[in-house]
């Protein structure tokens, strides 16, 4: 296997960087793994969705399974490595371009991943034609260069997400379909929500709902959101509906905030690992850079737990950025944290807010998981619960119903800010991120039904989350897989580094691919910009039967991973043996001649 991996025939990816033409097959060969530098690795897989690109490779693999197993495995493995390098290249280009987009003028060319796999494995006519398609796709003169970037993101992510959508696991009809424990969605209470949304009080239409809305959100919904947040965030005083802006999702809120708080090329600090969606929201439209504040996976120094955020780390990254001449405008926090599941203590929260105030930074706090704290021993502190905020005019809170209610399809996100200028500026985007008044009405009904929330939904949701979490963590313990045991969010952050040989991001991606082979989707740590390879996020907020099948597949993959490692070691040993005996043969110079 190792021989295949070396793949010396390829040329560096730089060959097709900055070109607008689609080059010939040898030009577009991916970067050899050995040449994929650290820099590259740090950037290249920050998009969760990009990882799903790999889904398309699967079809390719399964198509060739009937041939000679050994030969097939070589091919298979080579294809994987090439795809992986290509994927890496793709992501680097995308990220670099998104981040440098502000300066303009920088043109780049993305190879088309799915066609590339055909190039490598099948070649010939098919590759010719698909390459043509690819050229047509990516050299379109119809799109602006930023349009091209956006389009290439789609090609590399959404299409493959659609592949999953087209082949979903279904306990009746498609037990061999993909199980998605990669997307953070709470599917445990969809029955409760469906039932609640079907009740007759939801079905209301009047003239007012059919007319142009207040672009900040319907007054009745803003009022309800203010009341809701007052209660569930335990605000010391009533929150003001005038400080609420309602848009069609938290991504839209973040995108608008990035627009109004930063100029292109300016930056936010983000404790890392963090949700990859932030990158889309900050970069796609706003061209705002996210500067990772890397957290250590190991407890060291003053840290009392892994991945702990400290003011020291924030300051360090801030200073480095300043040295490089970057303008940092804010700090982006998620609490409860995604993917770690951490909940910040009140003291830590105050430390971060004080830090931000000291350096005149805005703080955006995404509290989208605030009602998904299912461990009763944990107390969540919303920033809105703080008596006197260090810098209220620079503190902006985001919340939505996608996670806490598992209704991402309803498309609702809200901003609470004490800063009227920010609220006004974000409201300008109201017409571009507007949410249907009919949906606004239903959301109001939902949020105001405290009886249902407090005695039905929240207790049941927490119970189900707890049960699912317990099941998954017990399984992980049985498999001896280390993980962060937190009591909030919809996921566990697990450590599979012992299955990586060597412990690199290439191996992480391979393992990820291996899961995909078994039709199991997890999110690799790299898509959260985690700096240590081997971490995965596993979403457990799904029904028990599905989780059981998923854990079965998970176990299978780990077993195979171990077997493969053993076999690789054996092969290497044999190869070494052979090499030794060959060398030995070579040192007996004329032995064959003697025979002849």
């Amino acid at each position: 296997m190792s021989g295949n991996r070396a793949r010396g025939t390829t040329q560096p990816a730089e060959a097709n960087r900055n070109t607008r033409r689609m080059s010939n097959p040898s030009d577009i060969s991916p970067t050899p793994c050995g040449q994929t530098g650290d820099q590259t690795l740090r950037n290249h897989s920050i998009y969760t969705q990009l990882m799903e690109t790999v889904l398309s490779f699967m079809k390719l693999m399964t198509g060739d399974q009937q041939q000679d197993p050994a030969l097939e495995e070589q091919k298979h493995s080579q294809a994987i490595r090439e795809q992986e390098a290509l994927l890496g290249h793709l992501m680097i280009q995308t990220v670099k371009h998104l981040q440098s987009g502000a300066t303009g003028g920088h043109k780049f060319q993305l190879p088309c991943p799915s066609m590339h796999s055909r190039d490598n494995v099948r070649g010939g006519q098919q590759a010719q034609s698909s390459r043509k398609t690819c050229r047509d796709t990516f050299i379109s003169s119809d799109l602006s260069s930023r349009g091209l970037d956006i389009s290439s993101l789609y090609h590399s992510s959404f299409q493959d997400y659609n592949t999953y959508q087209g082949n979903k696991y279904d306990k009746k009809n498609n037990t061999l379909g993909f199980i998605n424990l990669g997307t953070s969605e709470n599917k445990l209470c969809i029955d409760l929500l469906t039932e609640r949304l079907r009740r007759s009080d939801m079905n209301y239409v009047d003239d007012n709902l059919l007319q142009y809305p207040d672009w900040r959100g319907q007054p009745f919904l803003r009022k309800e959101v203010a009341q809701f947040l007052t209660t569930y965030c335990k605000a010391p005083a009533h929150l003001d509906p005038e400080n609420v802006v309602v848009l069609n999702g938290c991504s839209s809120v973040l995108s608008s905030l990035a627009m109004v708080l930063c100029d292109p090329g300016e930056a936010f600090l983000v404790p890392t690992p963090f949700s990859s969606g932030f990158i889309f929201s900050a970069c796609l439209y706003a061209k705002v850079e996210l500067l990772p504040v890397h957290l250590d996976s190991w407890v060291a120094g003053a840290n009392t737990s892994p991945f702990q955020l400290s003011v020291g780390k924030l300051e360090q990254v801030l200073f480095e950025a300043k040295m490089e001449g970057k303008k940092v405008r804010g700090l982006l926090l998620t609490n409860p944290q995604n993917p770690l599941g951490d909940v910040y203590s009140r003291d830590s929260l105050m430390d971060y807010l004080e830090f931000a105030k000291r350096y005149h930074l805005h703080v955006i706090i995404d509290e989208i998981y605030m009602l998904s704290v299912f461990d009763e021993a944990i107390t969540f502190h919303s920033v809105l619960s703080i008596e006197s905020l260090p810098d209220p005019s620079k503190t902006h809170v985001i919340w939505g119903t996608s996670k806490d209610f598992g209704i991402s399809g309803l498309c609702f996100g809200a901003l609470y800010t004490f800063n009227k200028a920010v609220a006004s500026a974000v409201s300008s985007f109201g017409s571009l991120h507007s949410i249907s008044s009919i949906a606004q009405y239903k959301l109001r009904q939902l949020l105001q039904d405290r009886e249902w929330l407090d005695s039905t939904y929240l207790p049941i949701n927490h119970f189900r989350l707890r049960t699912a979490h317990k099941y998954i963590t017990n399984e992980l313990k049985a498999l001896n897989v280390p993980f962060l045991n937190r009591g909030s969010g919809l996921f566990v952050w697990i450590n599979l580094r012992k299955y990586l040989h060597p412990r690199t991001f290439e191996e992480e991606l391979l393992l990820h691919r291996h899961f995909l082979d078994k039709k199991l989707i997890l999110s690799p740590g790299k898509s959260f910009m985690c700096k240590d390879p081997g971490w995965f996020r596993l979403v457990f907020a799904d029904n028990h039967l599905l989780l059981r099948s998923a854990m079965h597949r998970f176990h299978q993959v780990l077993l195979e991973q171990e077997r493969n490692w053993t076999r690789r070691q054996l092969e290497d040993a044999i190869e070494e043996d052979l090499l030794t005996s060959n060398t030995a043969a070579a040192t007996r110079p004329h032995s064959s001649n003697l025979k002849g």
Partner: protein
Amino acid sequence: MSTLCQKETRTPATCLGSGSAQGLHTSNGDDVERECSRKPDQKPLKRYRVGDPTAMFSPNSPHLSSRGSIIKWFWDSAEEGYRTYHMDEYDEDKNPNGIINLGTSENKLCFDLLTRRLSQSDMLRVEPSLLQYPDWRGRPFLREEVARFLSFYCKSPAPLKPENVVVLNGCASLFSALATVLCEAGEAFLIPAPYYGSITQHVCLYGGVRLVCVYLDSEVTGLETRPFQLTVEKLEMALQGANSEGVKVKGLILINPHNPLGDVYSLGELQEYLDFAKRHELHVIVDEIYLLSVFEKSVEFHSVLSLERLPDSQRTHVMWAASKDFGMSGIRFGTLYTENRDVATAVASLCRYHSLSGLVQYQMAQLFRDRDWINQVYLPENHARLKAAHTYVSEELRALGIPFLSRGAGFFIWANLGKYLPEATFEQEMLLWRRFLDNKVLLSFGKAFECKEPGWFRLVFSDRMHRLRLGMQRVRQVLEGESQVAADAPSCQTQEPRGPRSHCED
């Protein structure tokens, strides 16, 4: 269309009503015809203007980025009219002295039909899949229905394809997304002016894209047959002008039926504009949001999707929405139809920021599927009501001797109140607009549509009779008072040159 044109052009130039100027003050004794075509100043005007919304203001907020301050200005400047209205909305019972809104282009004539239809049991379905992460292009069932719907109502020669459909939360988002994927920041679209002014904001906010106004004249000259006629010559001049200023033009925006003019382009005209665009490799965005609101039977609307062969199908992008034709701007449904897969894909990848609730997508599909209701109940009734309301308001304007344009499509009448301005300036136009607002009636002034001649106003007539009557009464009060005020108006009024913009619609 021809009948209507004839009727309207019986009195020359801007088709004023038969009442003419009798008994009304007309400045300097000009007859109305001359007045309509009067130039605001003597210097020859540029026939185009490169818009730059960002150059219009200077304020800065300490907490916002510089672009954030510009963005905030967009919001604040919309405040005066629309938000004054919202704080003091007319209500027959609760607030009879509140403001009547004849400024926002909304169809309020059919809420009874629509609320009834939307309350029927087939609309109430809630499926788990509708609550979860969507296909960002729009749910497949809805895209299929939209393709069928547009094939039928746009009379496309072949069935339209669901793959070419992208669904978003309104045409505002669509303008924004198209501007972003078709242009670099600082590049521009051509747009015939007057035009529905909010497009300026839509293409600018995220996209940083500018609009080059192709100025149309109220005066009919040369081979033109009607006021404010768009000709290829004017397009060519504007394009050359923009190029000479170093502004890169990437496309042309057409609104058909037109807002605020109510024009419907003939097949020949449409073909000419598309050929012009093809010649210069320009994209054409055709906003057909009023396609089903052609209420005059003699007027024939031609969708670009009905053309047998588009000159440049890869660069032709059609938008439609439910806001106008179904009078449901609060639902936020908009759609793009383009044969260009790259454009569809690029727009779709921005859709996570412009998505529409799954439950609402389901309702829209149900609505578009119900052809019996649309064809037998909704459209005939809607057109009859639009026509009745239109007739009422045009009669009122004629009685006042106010020249106006109206061609049997859309929700509005484009009226020339120039004779009520003591001076032909936009400051005076703004003053008149404020007087209307003070008298509790909200109209839209021509400047908000980038009209180059002061004095034009857009009057929306698609409202219930009791409100229309009151609204027109208030308009008349102002104008009749105004004509006296005008006689001894102070010669110079200092006014901030930039007034509030019209409310952001789509």
